[in-house]
Protein backbone atom coordinates (compact mmCIF):
# COMPACT_ATOMS: atom_id res chain seq x y z
CA UNK A 1 0.00 0.00 0.00
CA UNK A 2 2.82 2.39 0.90
CA UNK A 3 4.54 1.55 -2.35
CA UNK A 4 1.44 2.61 -4.28
CA UNK A 5 1.45 5.94 -2.42
CA UNK A 6 5.01 6.58 -3.59
CA UNK A 7 3.95 5.81 -7.16
CA UNK A 8 0.94 8.11 -6.88
CA UNK A 9 3.07 10.93 -5.59
CA UNK A 10 5.38 10.49 -8.56
CA UNK A 11 2.51 10.39 -11.09
CA UNK A 12 0.84 13.51 -9.73
CA UNK A 13 4.12 15.42 -9.70
CA UNK A 14 4.66 14.50 -13.32
CA UNK A 15 1.09 15.35 -14.33
CA UNK A 16 1.21 18.76 -12.66
CA UNK A 17 4.51 19.51 -14.37
CA UNK A 18 3.26 18.44 -17.78
CA UNK A 19 2.49 21.44 -19.93
CA UNK A 20 0.13 19.47 -22.17
CA UNK A 21 -1.87 17.30 -19.81
CA UNK A 22 -2.68 19.92 -17.20
CA UNK A 23 -4.38 22.37 -19.60
CA UNK A 24 -6.18 19.46 -21.27
CA UNK A 25 -7.81 18.55 -17.97
CA UNK A 26 -9.48 21.96 -17.92
CA UNK A 27 -9.79 22.83 -21.59
CA UNK A 28 -11.36 19.60 -22.83
CA UNK A 29 -14.46 19.78 -20.59
CA UNK A 30 -15.01 23.46 -21.34
CA UNK A 31 -14.71 22.95 -25.10
CA UNK A 32 -16.90 19.88 -25.11
CA UNK A 33 -19.65 21.39 -23.03
CA UNK A 34 -19.71 24.78 -24.70
CA UNK A 35 -19.21 23.75 -28.31
CA UNK A 36 -20.38 20.17 -28.75
CA UNK A 37 -23.55 20.42 -26.73
CA UNK A 38 -24.70 23.47 -28.66
CA UNK A 39 -23.54 22.13 -31.99
CA UNK A 40 -24.90 18.59 -31.71
CA UNK A 41 -28.57 19.35 -31.97
CA UNK A 42 -31.44 17.94 -33.98
CA UNK A 43 -33.69 20.92 -33.33
CA UNK A 44 -34.88 22.48 -36.61
CA UNK A 45 -34.01 26.13 -36.55
CA UNK A 46 -34.98 26.98 -40.14
CA UNK A 47 -36.81 25.10 -42.85
CA UNK A 48 -36.68 26.52 -46.37
CA UNK A 49 -39.89 25.56 -48.15
CA UNK A 50 -40.41 26.21 -51.85
CA UNK A 51 -44.03 26.37 -52.94
CA UNK A 52 -45.14 25.54 -56.47
CA UNK A 53 -48.72 26.65 -56.75
CA UNK A 54 -50.39 25.59 -60.01
CA UNK A 55 -53.83 26.30 -58.59
CA UNK A 56 -53.48 29.90 -57.36
CA UNK A 57 -56.74 29.58 -55.50
CA UNK A 58 -58.16 30.94 -52.27
CA UNK A 59 -57.59 27.63 -50.48
CA UNK A 60 -54.02 27.10 -51.65
CA UNK A 61 -53.15 30.59 -50.48
CA UNK A 62 -54.73 29.88 -47.10
CA UNK A 63 -52.60 26.77 -46.63
CA UNK A 64 -49.44 28.60 -47.71
CA UNK A 65 -50.25 31.35 -45.21
CA UNK A 66 -50.48 28.73 -42.49
CA UNK A 67 -46.95 27.50 -43.29
CA UNK A 68 -45.78 31.08 -43.41
CA UNK A 69 -47.18 31.66 -39.95
CA UNK A 70 -44.81 29.13 -38.37
CA UNK A 71 -41.60 30.99 -37.41
CA UNK A 72 -39.07 28.43 -38.63
CA UNK A 73 -40.76 27.85 -42.00
CA UNK A 74 -39.31 30.20 -44.59
CA UNK A 75 -41.66 30.05 -47.53
CA UNK A 76 -40.42 30.92 -51.02
CA UNK A 77 -43.33 30.87 -53.44
CA UNK A 78 -41.80 32.01 -56.63
CA UNK A 79 -41.34 28.90 -58.65
CA UNK A 80 -43.91 28.14 -61.28
CA UNK A 81 -42.36 24.90 -62.42
CA UNK A 82 -41.40 21.82 -60.44
CA UNK A 83 -38.15 21.68 -62.38
CA UNK A 84 -36.88 24.99 -60.97
CA UNK A 85 -37.99 23.99 -57.48
CA UNK A 86 -36.20 20.68 -57.76
CA UNK A 87 -33.04 22.51 -58.76
CA UNK A 88 -33.30 24.42 -55.52
CA UNK A 89 -33.61 21.17 -53.62
CA UNK A 90 -30.59 19.83 -55.46
CA UNK A 91 -28.51 22.92 -54.67
CA UNK A 92 -29.43 22.67 -51.00
CA UNK A 93 -31.25 26.00 -51.19
CA UNK A 94 -34.49 24.33 -50.14
CA UNK A 95 -35.32 21.65 -47.58
CA UNK A 96 -38.73 20.78 -48.99
CA UNK A 97 -41.11 21.52 -51.88
CA UNK A 98 -44.85 21.82 -51.55
CA UNK A 99 -46.73 21.33 -54.85
CA UNK A 100 -50.36 22.31 -55.38
CA UNK A 101 -51.86 20.61 -58.45
CA UNK A 102 -54.07 22.59 -60.86
CA UNK A 103 -57.37 21.36 -59.50
CA UNK A 104 -56.52 21.61 -55.84
CA UNK A 105 -59.48 23.79 -54.87
CA UNK A 106 -61.94 22.34 -57.40
CA UNK A 107 -61.39 18.80 -56.14
CA UNK A 108 -61.68 19.97 -52.59
CA UNK A 109 -65.10 21.53 -53.20
CA UNK A 110 -66.44 18.95 -55.63
CA UNK A 111 -65.09 15.71 -54.14
CA UNK A 112 -64.54 16.81 -50.54
CA UNK A 113 -61.01 15.53 -51.04
CA UNK A 114 -57.86 16.91 -52.58
CA UNK A 115 -54.13 16.37 -52.65
CA UNK A 116 -50.88 18.25 -52.25
CA UNK A 117 -47.43 16.87 -52.85
CA UNK A 118 -44.62 17.30 -50.35
CA UNK A 119 -41.05 16.58 -51.52
CA UNK A 120 -38.51 16.48 -48.73
CA UNK A 121 -34.74 16.41 -48.89
CA UNK A 122 -34.06 13.26 -46.90
CA UNK A 123 -30.27 13.22 -46.92
CA UNK A 124 -30.58 13.69 -43.21
CA UNK A 125 -33.40 11.39 -42.34
CA UNK A 126 -33.94 12.89 -38.91
CA UNK A 127 -34.57 16.36 -40.25
CA UNK A 128 -36.73 14.95 -43.03
CA UNK A 129 -38.95 13.20 -40.51
CA UNK A 130 -39.26 16.36 -38.49
CA UNK A 131 -40.21 18.40 -41.57
CA UNK A 132 -42.81 15.80 -42.45
CA UNK A 133 -44.21 15.79 -38.94
CA UNK A 134 -44.46 19.56 -38.81
CA UNK A 135 -46.08 19.72 -42.26
CA UNK A 136 -48.56 16.97 -41.46
CA UNK A 137 -49.58 18.89 -38.38
CA UNK A 138 -50.10 22.11 -40.31
CA UNK A 139 -52.16 20.36 -42.96
CA UNK A 140 -54.35 18.58 -40.44
CA UNK A 141 -54.89 21.91 -38.76
CA UNK A 142 -55.91 23.32 -42.12
CA UNK A 143 -58.37 20.43 -42.51
CA UNK A 144 -60.02 21.24 -39.24
CA UNK A 145 -60.38 24.89 -40.26
CA UNK A 146 -62.10 23.92 -43.49
CA UNK A 147 -64.48 21.56 -41.77
CA UNK A 148 -65.31 24.23 -39.27
CA UNK A 149 -65.84 26.83 -41.97
CA UNK A 150 -67.98 24.67 -44.27
CA UNK A 151 -70.12 23.01 -41.71
CA UNK A 152 -70.43 26.16 -39.67
CA UNK A 153 -69.31 24.40 -36.54
CA UNK A 154 -67.38 26.68 -34.21
CA UNK A 155 -63.80 25.66 -33.55
CA UNK A 156 -64.31 25.09 -29.85
CA UNK A 157 -66.85 22.27 -30.32
CA UNK A 158 -65.49 19.07 -28.82
CA UNK A 159 -63.60 17.15 -31.46
CA UNK A 160 -65.21 14.05 -32.86
CA UNK A 161 -62.04 11.98 -32.77
CA UNK A 162 -59.57 11.00 -30.11
CA UNK A 163 -56.82 13.51 -29.64
CA UNK A 164 -53.51 13.27 -27.92
CA UNK A 165 -52.44 15.85 -25.43
CA UNK A 166 -48.72 15.74 -24.95
CA UNK A 167 -46.89 16.09 -21.70
CA UNK A 168 -43.20 15.39 -22.00
CA UNK A 169 -41.73 13.97 -18.82
CA UNK A 170 -38.14 14.31 -17.60
CA UNK A 171 -37.39 16.93 -20.25
CA UNK A 172 -40.64 18.92 -20.48
CA UNK A 173 -39.41 21.50 -22.95
CA UNK A 174 -37.69 18.89 -25.10
CA UNK A 175 -34.47 20.82 -24.64
CA UNK A 176 -31.96 19.01 -26.79
CA UNK A 177 -29.08 20.32 -24.72
CA UNK A 178 -30.41 18.46 -21.70
CA UNK A 179 -30.33 15.28 -23.71
CA UNK A 180 -26.86 15.87 -25.16
CA UNK A 181 -25.03 17.22 -22.11
CA UNK A 182 -25.05 13.99 -20.05
CA UNK A 183 -24.05 12.04 -23.17
CA UNK A 184 -21.16 14.36 -24.00
CA UNK A 185 -20.03 14.15 -20.38
CA UNK A 186 -19.98 10.37 -20.65
CA UNK A 187 -17.72 10.68 -23.70
CA UNK A 188 -15.50 13.16 -21.89
CA UNK A 189 -14.94 10.80 -18.98
CA UNK A 190 -14.18 8.02 -21.47
CA UNK A 191 -11.58 10.03 -23.38
CA UNK A 192 -9.80 11.01 -20.18
CA UNK A 193 -9.85 7.43 -19.02
CA UNK A 194 -8.78 5.57 -22.10
CA UNK A 195 -6.35 7.94 -23.73
CA UNK A 196 -4.57 9.59 -20.82
CA UNK A 197 -3.82 6.38 -18.93
CA UNK A 198 -2.78 4.44 -22.01
CA UNK A 199 -0.57 7.18 -23.39
CA UNK A 200 1.04 7.67 -20.01
CA UNK A 201 2.05 4.03 -19.62
CA UNK A 202 3.38 3.59 -23.13
CA UNK A 203 5.35 6.84 -22.83
CA UNK A 204 7.35 5.23 -20.05
CA UNK A 205 8.10 2.40 -22.47
CA UNK A 206 9.18 4.87 -25.15
CA UNK A 207 11.57 6.85 -22.98
CA UNK A 208 12.80 3.72 -21.19
CA UNK A 209 11.96 4.66 -17.60
CA UNK A 210 9.79 1.55 -17.30
CA UNK A 211 12.96 -0.59 -17.37
CA UNK A 212 14.18 0.94 -14.15
CA UNK A 213 10.86 0.07 -12.52
CA UNK A 214 10.89 -3.43 -13.98
CA UNK A 215 14.16 -4.34 -12.26
CA UNK A 216 12.66 -3.44 -8.88
CA UNK A 217 10.57 -5.87 -6.81
CA UNK A 218 7.49 -3.73 -7.63
CA UNK A 219 4.41 -5.96 -8.02
CA UNK A 220 2.45 -5.94 -11.27
CA UNK A 221 -0.78 -4.93 -9.59
CA UNK A 222 0.97 -2.13 -7.71
CA UNK A 223 2.26 -0.71 -10.95
CA UNK A 224 -1.12 -0.87 -12.73
CA UNK A 225 -3.04 0.52 -9.74
CA UNK A 226 -0.46 3.30 -9.49
CA UNK A 227 -1.17 4.18 -13.11
CA UNK A 228 -4.94 3.86 -12.73
CA UNK A 229 -5.70 5.93 -9.64
CA UNK A 230 -4.36 9.32 -10.86
CA UNK A 231 -6.50 9.21 -13.98
CA UNK A 232 -9.44 7.86 -12.03
CA UNK A 233 -9.29 10.96 -9.87
CA UNK A 234 -8.82 13.25 -12.87
CA UNK A 235 -11.76 11.59 -14.65
CA UNK A 236 -14.08 12.12 -11.69
CA UNK A 237 -12.82 15.66 -11.29
CA UNK A 238 -13.57 16.39 -14.94
CA UNK A 239 -17.03 14.91 -14.57
CA UNK A 240 -17.69 17.30 -11.69
CA UNK A 241 -16.20 20.17 -13.65
CA UNK A 242 -18.28 19.39 -16.75
CA UNK A 243 -21.47 19.00 -14.72
CA UNK A 244 -20.87 22.38 -13.13
CA UNK A 245 -20.48 23.99 -16.54
CA UNK A 246 -23.66 22.30 -17.80
CA UNK A 247 -25.54 23.44 -14.72
CA UNK A 248 -24.30 27.03 -15.01
CA UNK A 249 -24.56 27.45 -18.76
CA UNK A 250 -27.73 25.62 -19.72
CA UNK A 251 -29.47 25.02 -16.44
CA UNK A 252 -29.08 21.26 -16.68
CA UNK A 253 -31.22 19.96 -13.85
CA UNK A 254 -29.52 17.25 -11.80
CA UNK A 255 -32.56 15.39 -10.53
CA UNK A 256 -30.84 12.32 -9.10
CA UNK A 257 -28.25 12.09 -6.35
CA UNK A 258 -24.70 13.14 -7.10
CA UNK A 259 -23.47 10.30 -4.92
CA UNK A 260 -25.16 7.73 -7.19
CA UNK A 261 -23.76 9.44 -10.26
CA UNK A 262 -20.17 9.55 -9.03
CA UNK A 263 -20.36 6.07 -7.56
CA UNK A 264 -21.39 4.67 -10.94
CA UNK A 265 -18.86 6.87 -12.75
CA UNK A 266 -16.14 5.52 -10.45
CA UNK A 267 -16.97 1.95 -11.39
CA UNK A 268 -17.25 2.84 -15.06
CA UNK A 269 -13.84 4.56 -15.00
CA UNK A 270 -12.14 1.46 -13.60
CA UNK A 271 -13.32 -0.34 -16.73
CA UNK A 272 -12.21 2.23 -19.31
CA UNK A 273 -8.93 2.91 -17.52
CA UNK A 274 -8.33 -0.82 -17.36
CA UNK A 275 -8.99 -1.12 -21.08
CA UNK A 276 -6.70 1.83 -21.86
CA UNK A 277 -3.92 0.33 -19.74
CA UNK A 278 -4.49 -3.12 -21.26
CA UNK A 279 -4.08 -1.65 -24.75
CA UNK A 280 -0.89 0.10 -23.71
CA UNK A 281 0.62 -3.06 -22.25
CA UNK A 282 0.26 -4.57 -25.73
CA UNK A 283 1.62 -1.55 -27.60
CA UNK A 284 5.14 -0.19 -27.94
CA UNK A 285 4.48 3.36 -29.13
CA UNK A 286 2.05 6.16 -28.46
CA UNK A 287 0.83 5.98 -32.06
CA UNK A 288 -0.21 2.39 -31.61
CA UNK A 289 -2.09 3.23 -28.45
CA UNK A 290 -3.80 6.15 -30.19
CA UNK A 291 -4.93 4.03 -33.11
CA UNK A 292 -6.23 1.10 -31.12
CA UNK A 293 -7.90 3.29 -28.49
CA UNK A 294 -9.49 5.36 -31.22
CA UNK A 295 -10.87 2.25 -32.86
CA UNK A 296 -12.58 1.13 -29.65
CA UNK A 297 -13.65 4.65 -28.84
CA UNK A 298 -15.43 5.09 -32.21
CA UNK A 299 -17.34 1.84 -31.87
CA UNK A 300 -18.22 2.45 -28.25
CA UNK A 301 -19.43 6.00 -28.85
CA UNK A 302 -21.40 5.31 -32.02
CA UNK A 303 -23.04 2.26 -30.50
CA UNK A 304 -23.36 3.80 -27.06
CA UNK A 305 -26.66 5.50 -27.70
CA UNK A 306 -25.61 9.11 -27.64
CA UNK A 307 -26.84 9.96 -31.14
CA UNK A 308 -29.08 7.02 -31.99
CA UNK A 309 -31.22 5.10 -29.54
CA UNK A 310 -29.85 1.63 -28.86
CA UNK A 311 -33.43 0.27 -28.87
CA UNK A 312 -33.71 0.94 -32.60
CA UNK A 313 -30.55 -0.97 -33.45
CA UNK A 314 -30.85 -4.48 -34.88
CA UNK A 315 -30.91 -7.27 -32.32
CA UNK A 316 -27.40 -8.50 -33.04
CA UNK A 317 -26.06 -5.00 -32.51
CA UNK A 318 -27.89 -4.73 -29.22
CA UNK A 319 -26.31 -8.02 -28.16
CA UNK A 320 -22.83 -6.70 -28.96
CA UNK A 321 -23.67 -3.57 -27.00
CA UNK A 322 -23.79 -5.66 -23.83
CA UNK A 323 -19.98 -5.49 -23.93
CA UNK A 324 -19.93 -1.74 -24.51
CA UNK A 325 -19.23 0.13 -21.27
CA UNK A 326 -20.39 3.45 -22.75
CA UNK A 327 -23.82 1.96 -23.43
CA UNK A 328 -24.37 1.38 -19.71
CA UNK A 329 -22.78 4.60 -18.60
CA UNK A 330 -24.77 6.68 -21.10
CA UNK A 331 -27.93 5.24 -19.61
CA UNK A 332 -26.71 5.88 -16.08
CA UNK A 333 -25.87 9.49 -16.89
CA UNK A 334 -29.23 10.28 -18.49
CA UNK A 335 -31.30 8.32 -16.01
CA UNK A 336 -29.67 9.83 -12.95
CA UNK A 337 -29.35 13.37 -14.24
CA UNK A 338 -32.75 13.75 -15.93
CA UNK A 339 -34.92 11.14 -14.26
CA UNK A 340 -33.48 10.89 -10.77
CA UNK A 341 -32.98 7.12 -10.89
CA UNK A 342 -31.26 5.56 -7.88
CA UNK A 343 -28.98 2.56 -7.45
CA UNK A 344 -31.88 0.07 -7.32
CA UNK A 345 -33.16 1.32 -10.69
CA UNK A 346 -29.64 0.93 -12.08
CA UNK A 347 -28.89 -2.52 -10.71
CA UNK A 348 -28.38 -4.07 -14.12
CA UNK A 349 -25.99 -1.28 -15.14
CA UNK A 350 -24.15 -1.59 -11.84
CA UNK A 351 -23.62 -5.32 -12.25
CA UNK A 352 -22.58 -5.05 -15.89
CA UNK A 353 -20.17 -2.16 -15.30
CA UNK A 354 -18.63 -3.99 -12.36
CA UNK A 355 -18.05 -7.12 -14.44
CA UNK A 356 -16.52 -5.10 -17.28
CA UNK A 357 -14.37 -3.14 -14.81
CA UNK A 358 -12.98 -6.21 -13.10
CA UNK A 359 -12.37 -7.91 -16.46
CA UNK A 360 -10.49 -5.04 -18.09
CA UNK A 361 -8.44 -4.30 -14.98
CA UNK A 362 -7.47 -7.97 -14.57
CA UNK A 363 -6.50 -8.13 -18.24
CA UNK A 364 -4.23 -5.10 -17.80
CA UNK A 365 -2.52 -6.56 -14.72
CA UNK A 366 -2.21 -9.98 -16.32
CA UNK A 367 -0.80 -8.63 -19.56
CA UNK A 368 1.71 -6.22 -18.03
CA UNK A 369 5.10 -7.90 -18.34
CA UNK A 370 8.10 -7.09 -16.24
CA UNK A 371 10.11 -9.57 -18.27
CA UNK A 372 10.03 -9.18 -22.04
Amino acid at each position, binding site marked *: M*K*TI*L*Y*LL*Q*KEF*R*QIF*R*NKTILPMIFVVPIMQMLILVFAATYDMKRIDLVVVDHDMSENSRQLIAKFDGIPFFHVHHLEQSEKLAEDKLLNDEADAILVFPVNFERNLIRDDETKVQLLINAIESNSAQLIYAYSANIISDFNKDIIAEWKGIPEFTPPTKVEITENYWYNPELDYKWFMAPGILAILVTIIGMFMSGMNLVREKE*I*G*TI*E*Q*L*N*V*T*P*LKKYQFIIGKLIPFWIIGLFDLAFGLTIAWLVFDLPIVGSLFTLFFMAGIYLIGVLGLGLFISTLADTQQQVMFVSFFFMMIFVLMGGIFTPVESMPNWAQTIDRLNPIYYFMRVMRMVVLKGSNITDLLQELVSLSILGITFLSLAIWRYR*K*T*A
Partner: protein
Amino acid sequence: MERETIISARNLVKNFGHFTANDNLSFEVRKGEIFGFLGANGAGKTTAIRILCGLSSPTSGEVEVAGFDIYRETEKIKKNIGYMSQKFSLYEDLTILENIKLYAGIYGISRKQRKEKESELLKKLELENVKNKLIGDLPLGWKQKLAFSVAIFHDPKIVFLDEPTGGVDPVTRRKFWDLIYEAAHNGITVFVTTHYMDEAEYCDRVSIMNAGRIEALDTPAKLKEKYNATNMDEVFLKIAR
Protein backbone atom coordinates in the same frame (compact mmCIF):
# COMPACT_ATOMS: atom_id res chain seq x y z
CA MET B 1 41.53 -18.08 -1.89
CA GLU B 2 38.36 -18.95 -3.76
CA ARG B 3 35.38 -16.73 -2.97
CA GLU B 4 31.79 -17.91 -3.21
CA THR B 5 29.95 -17.69 -6.52
CA ILE B 6 27.14 -15.10 -6.78
CA ILE B 7 26.22 -15.37 -10.46
CA SER B 8 26.47 -18.54 -12.46
CA ALA B 9 25.43 -19.16 -16.04
CA ARG B 10 25.63 -22.52 -17.78
CA ASN B 11 24.99 -22.82 -21.50
CA LEU B 12 22.94 -19.65 -21.60
CA VAL B 13 21.33 -19.20 -25.03
CA LYS B 14 19.16 -16.36 -26.27
CA ASN B 15 17.67 -16.40 -29.77
CA PHE B 16 15.72 -13.64 -31.45
CA GLY B 17 14.09 -15.53 -34.29
CA HIS B 18 16.99 -16.96 -36.29
CA PHE B 19 19.50 -14.60 -34.74
CA THR B 20 21.50 -15.94 -31.82
CA ALA B 21 22.41 -13.06 -29.53
CA ASN B 22 23.93 -15.20 -26.77
CA ASP B 23 25.48 -18.45 -27.89
CA ASN B 24 26.12 -20.93 -25.06
CA LEU B 25 27.48 -18.55 -22.44
CA SER B 26 28.99 -20.16 -19.35
CA PHE B 27 30.63 -18.10 -16.64
CA GLU B 28 30.73 -17.50 -12.92
CA VAL B 29 31.01 -14.25 -11.03
CA ARG B 30 32.44 -14.33 -7.50
CA LYS B 31 31.15 -12.35 -4.61
CA GLY B 32 32.64 -8.88 -4.25
CA GLU B 33 34.57 -8.76 -7.52
CA ILE B 34 34.33 -6.26 -10.35
CA PHE B 35 33.46 -8.37 -13.35
CA GLY B 36 33.92 -6.74 -16.75
CA PHE B 37 31.84 -7.84 -19.70
CA LEU B 38 33.65 -6.64 -22.80
CA GLY B 39 32.78 -6.72 -26.44
CA ALA B 40 32.15 -4.68 -29.53
CA ASN B 41 28.76 -3.13 -30.24
CA GLY B 42 26.29 -5.89 -31.00
CA ALA B 43 28.38 -8.62 -29.39
CA GLY B 44 25.48 -9.53 -27.08
CA LYS B 45 26.51 -7.78 -23.86
CA THR B 46 23.24 -5.95 -23.30
CA THR B 47 21.19 -9.05 -24.06
CA ALA B 48 23.11 -11.00 -21.42
CA ILE B 49 22.85 -8.28 -18.77
CA ARG B 50 19.11 -7.92 -19.37
CA ILE B 51 18.66 -11.66 -18.85
CA LEU B 52 20.64 -11.56 -15.60
CA CYS B 53 18.45 -8.69 -14.36
CA GLY B 54 15.25 -10.54 -15.19
CA LEU B 55 14.20 -8.05 -17.89
CA SER B 56 14.38 -10.70 -20.57
CA SER B 57 14.01 -14.46 -20.38
CA PRO B 58 16.63 -16.80 -21.84
CA THR B 59 15.82 -19.30 -24.58
CA SER B 60 17.68 -22.05 -22.71
CA GLY B 61 20.40 -22.64 -20.16
CA GLU B 62 20.70 -22.49 -16.39
CA VAL B 63 21.23 -19.18 -14.65
CA GLU B 64 21.40 -18.35 -10.97
CA VAL B 65 21.71 -14.84 -9.62
CA ALA B 66 22.27 -14.19 -5.89
CA GLY B 67 21.34 -17.81 -5.25
CA PHE B 68 17.98 -17.63 -7.03
CA ASP B 69 16.83 -19.32 -10.21
CA ILE B 70 16.30 -16.95 -13.13
CA TYR B 71 13.13 -18.69 -14.34
CA ARG B 72 11.24 -19.24 -11.11
CA GLU B 73 12.56 -16.67 -8.66
CA THR B 74 12.83 -13.53 -10.76
CA GLU B 75 11.13 -11.34 -8.16
CA LYS B 76 13.47 -12.53 -5.40
CA ILE B 77 16.43 -11.71 -7.61
CA LYS B 78 15.04 -8.21 -8.11
CA LYS B 79 15.16 -7.51 -4.39
CA ASN B 80 18.88 -8.22 -4.41
CA ILE B 81 20.14 -6.39 -7.47
CA GLY B 82 20.53 -2.89 -8.79
CA TYR B 83 20.56 -1.98 -12.47
CA MET B 84 21.73 0.98 -14.48
CA SER B 85 20.73 0.78 -18.10
CA GLN B 86 22.61 2.05 -21.11
CA LYS B 87 19.90 4.62 -21.69
CA PHE B 88 19.43 7.05 -18.81
CA SER B 89 16.20 5.97 -17.21
CA LEU B 90 15.51 8.02 -14.13
CA TYR B 91 12.61 10.47 -14.41
CA GLU B 92 13.85 13.64 -16.05
CA ASP B 93 10.76 15.54 -15.01
CA LEU B 94 11.39 14.83 -11.34
CA THR B 95 14.08 16.37 -9.14
CA ILE B 96 17.05 14.49 -7.73
CA LEU B 97 15.38 14.15 -4.34
CA GLU B 98 12.06 13.04 -5.84
CA ASN B 99 13.74 10.28 -7.85
CA ILE B 100 15.58 9.04 -4.77
CA LYS B 101 12.38 9.16 -2.75
CA LEU B 102 10.49 7.12 -5.35
CA TYR B 103 13.04 4.32 -5.62
CA ALA B 104 13.75 4.26 -1.90
CA GLY B 105 9.98 3.90 -1.41
CA ILE B 106 9.69 1.05 -3.88
CA TYR B 107 12.52 -0.85 -2.17
CA GLY B 108 10.84 -0.28 1.19
CA ILE B 109 13.54 1.88 2.76
CA SER B 110 12.23 3.76 5.78
CA ARG B 111 11.93 7.54 5.71
CA LYS B 112 14.52 8.03 8.42
CA GLN B 113 17.04 5.76 6.74
CA ARG B 114 16.46 7.47 3.42
CA LYS B 115 17.05 10.95 4.85
CA GLU B 116 20.38 9.86 6.33
CA LYS B 117 21.67 8.15 3.20
CA GLU B 118 20.36 10.86 0.96
CA SER B 119 22.23 13.74 2.62
CA GLU B 120 25.40 11.65 2.77
CA LEU B 121 25.05 10.84 -0.92
CA LEU B 122 24.39 14.41 -2.03
CA LYS B 123 27.45 15.58 -0.11
CA LYS B 124 29.60 12.90 -1.68
CA LEU B 125 28.42 13.68 -5.22
CA GLU B 126 28.51 17.45 -4.57
CA LEU B 127 24.91 17.77 -5.70
CA GLU B 128 23.52 19.53 -2.63
CA ASN B 129 22.91 22.79 -4.47
CA VAL B 130 20.92 21.15 -7.25
CA LYS B 131 18.99 18.59 -5.23
CA ASN B 132 15.70 20.29 -6.05
CA LYS B 133 16.45 20.72 -9.74
CA LEU B 134 14.79 18.59 -12.39
CA ILE B 135 17.15 15.85 -13.52
CA GLY B 136 16.53 16.71 -17.15
CA ASP B 137 18.42 19.98 -16.63
CA LEU B 138 21.62 18.32 -15.37
CA PRO B 139 24.71 17.51 -17.49
CA LEU B 140 25.15 13.89 -18.59
CA GLY B 141 28.08 13.13 -16.28
CA TRP B 142 26.06 14.13 -13.21
CA LYS B 143 23.07 12.14 -14.39
CA GLN B 144 25.17 8.99 -14.71
CA LYS B 145 26.68 9.34 -11.26
CA LEU B 146 23.20 9.83 -9.91
CA ALA B 147 21.79 6.84 -11.82
CA PHE B 148 24.53 4.66 -10.35
CA SER B 149 23.90 5.96 -6.83
CA VAL B 150 20.17 5.30 -7.15
CA ALA B 151 20.91 1.78 -8.45
CA ILE B 152 22.86 0.97 -5.26
CA PHE B 153 20.78 3.08 -2.86
CA HIS B 154 19.08 -0.01 -1.42
CA ASP B 155 22.42 -1.80 -0.86
CA PRO B 156 21.91 -4.63 -3.33
CA LYS B 157 24.17 -7.69 -3.41
CA ILE B 158 24.97 -7.14 -7.08
CA VAL B 159 24.81 -4.10 -9.31
CA PHE B 160 24.58 -4.44 -13.09
CA LEU B 161 25.95 -1.54 -15.11
CA ASP B 162 25.31 -1.49 -18.84
CA GLU B 163 27.87 0.80 -20.49
CA PRO B 164 27.64 3.27 -17.63
CA THR B 165 30.22 5.69 -18.99
CA GLY B 166 29.05 6.00 -22.59
CA GLY B 167 29.49 9.49 -23.99
CA VAL B 168 31.33 11.22 -21.15
CA ASP B 169 34.84 12.70 -20.93
CA PRO B 170 37.82 10.75 -19.48
CA VAL B 171 37.93 12.77 -16.26
CA THR B 172 34.28 12.08 -15.50
CA ARG B 173 34.83 8.42 -16.40
CA ARG B 174 37.70 8.21 -13.94
CA LYS B 175 35.50 9.73 -11.22
CA PHE B 176 32.75 7.31 -12.07
CA TRP B 177 35.14 4.42 -11.55
CA ASP B 178 35.99 5.79 -8.13
CA LEU B 179 32.32 5.30 -7.27
CA ILE B 180 32.44 1.74 -8.59
CA TYR B 181 35.50 0.95 -6.48
CA GLU B 182 33.80 2.38 -3.44
CA ALA B 183 30.74 0.19 -4.02
CA ALA B 184 32.93 -2.89 -4.48
CA HIS B 185 34.80 -1.99 -1.31
CA ASN B 186 31.46 -1.93 0.50
CA GLY B 187 30.84 -5.50 -0.60
CA ILE B 188 28.66 -4.98 -3.67
CA THR B 189 29.50 -7.25 -6.58
CA VAL B 190 29.83 -5.19 -9.76
CA PHE B 191 28.93 -6.57 -13.17
CA VAL B 192 29.85 -3.99 -15.79
CA THR B 193 29.74 -3.97 -19.58
CA THR B 194 31.91 -1.62 -21.55
CA HIS B 195 33.72 -1.22 -24.82
CA TYR B 196 36.39 1.10 -23.42
CA MET B 197 39.44 -1.12 -23.07
CA ASP B 198 41.15 1.16 -20.55
CA GLU B 199 38.21 0.45 -18.23
CA ALA B 200 38.87 -3.27 -18.60
CA GLU B 201 42.12 -2.73 -16.72
CA TYR B 202 40.11 -1.61 -13.67
CA CYS B 203 38.23 -4.91 -13.46
CA ASP B 204 39.20 -7.90 -11.34
CA ARG B 205 38.30 -10.28 -14.14
CA VAL B 206 37.00 -9.71 -17.64
CA SER B 207 35.21 -11.79 -20.22
CA ILE B 208 35.52 -10.80 -23.85
CA MET B 209 32.54 -11.43 -26.10
CA ASN B 210 32.51 -11.61 -29.84
CA ALA B 211 29.47 -12.39 -32.00
CA GLY B 212 27.46 -13.81 -29.11
CA ARG B 213 30.20 -16.03 -27.65
CA ILE B 214 32.62 -15.62 -24.78
CA GLU B 215 36.05 -15.88 -26.36
CA ALA B 216 38.21 -15.29 -23.28
CA LEU B 217 37.73 -14.99 -19.52
CA ASP B 218 40.45 -14.18 -16.99
CA THR B 219 42.17 -11.40 -15.09
CA PRO B 220 43.50 -8.56 -17.26
CA ALA B 221 47.08 -9.48 -16.35
CA LYS B 222 46.70 -13.12 -17.38
CA LEU B 223 44.94 -12.19 -20.61
CA LYS B 224 47.76 -9.82 -21.57
CA GLU B 225 50.26 -12.54 -20.84
CA LYS B 226 48.34 -15.16 -22.78
CA TYR B 227 47.89 -12.99 -25.87
CA ASN B 228 51.35 -11.50 -25.54
CA ALA B 229 50.02 -7.94 -25.42
CA THR B 230 51.03 -4.80 -23.56
CA ASN B 231 47.51 -3.55 -22.94
CA MET B 232 43.88 -4.73 -23.12
CA ASP B 233 43.35 -2.90 -26.40
CA GLU B 234 45.76 -5.30 -28.11
CA VAL B 235 44.18 -8.29 -26.42
CA PHE B 236 40.77 -7.24 -27.66
CA LEU B 237 41.93 -6.63 -31.22
CA LYS B 238 43.62 -10.05 -31.34
CA ILE B 239 40.47 -11.78 -30.14
CA ALA B 240 37.99 -9.85 -32.19
CA ARG B 241 39.93 -10.34 -35.42
